[in-house]
């Protein structure tokens, strides 16, 4: 029996340790929670998001906090595991008793957490892409990044303006790629564009020449779009150049990082893609209303972390600022009051664009949020 005594004592000890960790903080702070994928397969999302939140909460506190109170940020690392995220969501609500939550780096973790926050009535601003998060609208759930559907629309609008009507599509089988491919297929008809070839590749494929050859051979091809993420699009871009395909190549916002240009090399020349203004912060004209915000965020982030800015960190900035402004307007830390004010956000200028929320739209971005970029001499340039 001694063994079991030991076991139970061990369990009690563990529980005790856990309770010490969760010791309540001083009452005059406002607790904000976050469950982000800081490590694991989505760390490229979670890492800049966590850094951004920590950086700006520190900054806000140094400036006197919100409503005269200091902010207390609690960040958990769910390593993109939906089950873990759900547990942390419960922990944030039940144990840490936060008034609002920013984040959920991936669509999977976000969707797993939503029921917890909806049940508890805690406002939740997700940093994940998919449209299902806010469509249908859920009372307490918001999001800051543009959806993949908007990226498709931006690309197709650009094609339409150039008189392109017959295109090829090549996409990966990963989560981002697949979701965006479906959204593109859904809206492509609205722009009078026909998809004449639709090819896919696996996440770890190292050569897409066969698929691209099929596309190249499609009759009347006028452009190719590659909804993709990770290294796949870089390989597509290289193969595209090798096969000497003459028509324009469109990439998605999924490749909007400097490493894409490095990987694709010279082949990236002339590639067009929709992306956030953050990427071209320095190149925006001075009269651009978004310039001040993106330049400020870019400088702060790069100074503090020594790493190049990413749009994902920008989503966290937008989420935190929307929340802080809502708390200021509400003048209280009541989750319900905060929720109501988040929904009334209008004219907020974030790194992703102008946010105008409403009871029907819990994201509040429109197509102007995206800029059409073209890669010229190894750098992003504004195409519009």
């Amino acid at each position, binding site marked *: 029996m001694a063994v079991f005594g030991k076991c139970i004592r061990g369990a009690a000890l563990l529980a005790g340790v856990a309770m010490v960790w969760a010791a309540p903080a001083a009452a005059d702070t406002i607790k904000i929670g976050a469950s982000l994928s800081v490590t694991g397969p989505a760390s490229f999302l979670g890492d800049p998001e966590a850094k951004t939140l920590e950086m700006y909460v520190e900054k806000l506190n140094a400036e006197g906090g919100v409503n005269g109170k200091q902010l207390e940020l609690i960040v958990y690392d769910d390593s993109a595991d939906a089950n873990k995220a759900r547990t942390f969501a419960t922990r944030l609500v039940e*144990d840490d008793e936060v008034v609002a939550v920013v984040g959920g780096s991936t669509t999977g973790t976000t969707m*797993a957490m939503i029921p917890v926050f909806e049940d508890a009535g805690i406002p939740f601003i997700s940093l994940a892409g998919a449209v299902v998060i806010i469509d249908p609208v859920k009372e307490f759930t918001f999001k800051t990044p543009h959806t993949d559907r908007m990226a498709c629309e931006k690309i197709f609008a650009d094609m339409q303006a150039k008189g392109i009507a017959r295109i090829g599509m090549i996409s990966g089988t990963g989560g981002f790629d697949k979701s965006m491919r479906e959204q593109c297929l859904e809206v492509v008809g609205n722009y009078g564009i026909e998809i004449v070839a639709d090819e896919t590749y696996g996440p770890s494929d190292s050569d897409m020449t066969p698929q691209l050859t099929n596309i190249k051979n499609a009759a009347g091809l006028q452009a190719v779009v590659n909804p993709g993420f990770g290294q796949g699009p870089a390989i597509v871009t290289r193969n595209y150049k090798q096969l000497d395909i003459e028509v324009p190549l469109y990439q998605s916002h999924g490749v909007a990082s400097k490493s894409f240009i490095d990987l694709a090399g010279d082949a990236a020349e002339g590639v067009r893609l929709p992306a956030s203004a953050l990427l071209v912060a320095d190149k925006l004209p001075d009269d651009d209303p978004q310039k001040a915000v993106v330049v400020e965020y870019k400088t702060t982030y790069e100074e503090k972390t020594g790493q190049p800015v990413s749009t994902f960190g920008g989503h966290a900035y937008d989420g935190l600022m929307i929340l802080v402004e809502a708390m200021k307007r509400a003048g209280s830390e009541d989750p319900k009051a905060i929720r109501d004010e988040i929904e009334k956000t209008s004219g907020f200028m974030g790194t992703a664009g102008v946010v105008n929320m409403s009871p029907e739209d819990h994201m509040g971005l429109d197509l102007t949020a995206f800029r059409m970029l073209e890669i010229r001499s190894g750098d992003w340039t504004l195409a519009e």
Partner: protein
Amino acid sequence: MGKLLSHRLAVPVVIALLVVALSFAMPSNFYYRVAALVWISALAVIGLNLLMGYAGQVSLGHAGFFGIGAYAVAVLPAQFGLHPLVAALAGAVATAAIAFLVGRPILRLKGHYLAVATLGFGILIAMTISNEAWLTGGPDGMPVERLTLFGWRVRGADTWYWISGGLLVIGAWIACNLVASPTGRALRALHDSEVAARVAGIDVARAKLTVFVISAVYASVAGSTLALVNGFVTPDKANFLHSIELVTMVVLGGMGSILGSLAGAAILVVLPQVLTGFHDYEHMILGLIMMVIMIVLRAGIVPSLAAFFQGRRNK
């Protein structure tokens, strides 16, 4: 005392007492949830332990069965309007059928070959779930209808604590009975020496297949339960890493020990929650603790401690 413990009801009774006793020490729903996750993982681990610890066969694809159970309660109610409980049952039956079909050829293999074959099977299931987005929601996962029983909507971490705790006790009880049955003796015999077992008149292939199917059903039921608790499923519960996690729980807790399965599951579910305070060092410390356990308690937590106390008493 020793005699009392070796009774085949002892382990389920101990687990039942633990479930009841811990419920008095729960400060909030968060703790209920973590405990419920421990019970659910332990259920899958008990099943895998029957296969690994008693029959001596390894499976690196058990998360596949877990995934089948989880997606059964997600897909069947959404597509065909089945009640979640019926769906869970259908998932268990389907898992048993698949395990039976796959097990026949796979279990002819031994050692590394068996490991690779089960690994391949697990990856196959995970890929199917990821790729058939029209049915499973793809890599982003899909929501699971909430369970309603006689008009009562099952929700809340404390409710699930009792339900999953109850399932664990039943699972432990069945496992203990199985181990004490002729099949259990046959399994231990073939663990020690397949040739000797065959000479003793044991149908080795049949015994292996039986325990493979049973352990797959454990994983499936655990998967269904987790999906119902979470109200959402993602393919990562069916993937290779989760298979490894289950195997680690078995080895850490102790091969061939039902209570060890619970200990292994408890450590790997609770520790990450306790260690979040260490931020960047969390994974390092977790790895270190696991290494120390395996170095100090070679046979796994429960068997090693049991042997230690047994030794002291005999002195």
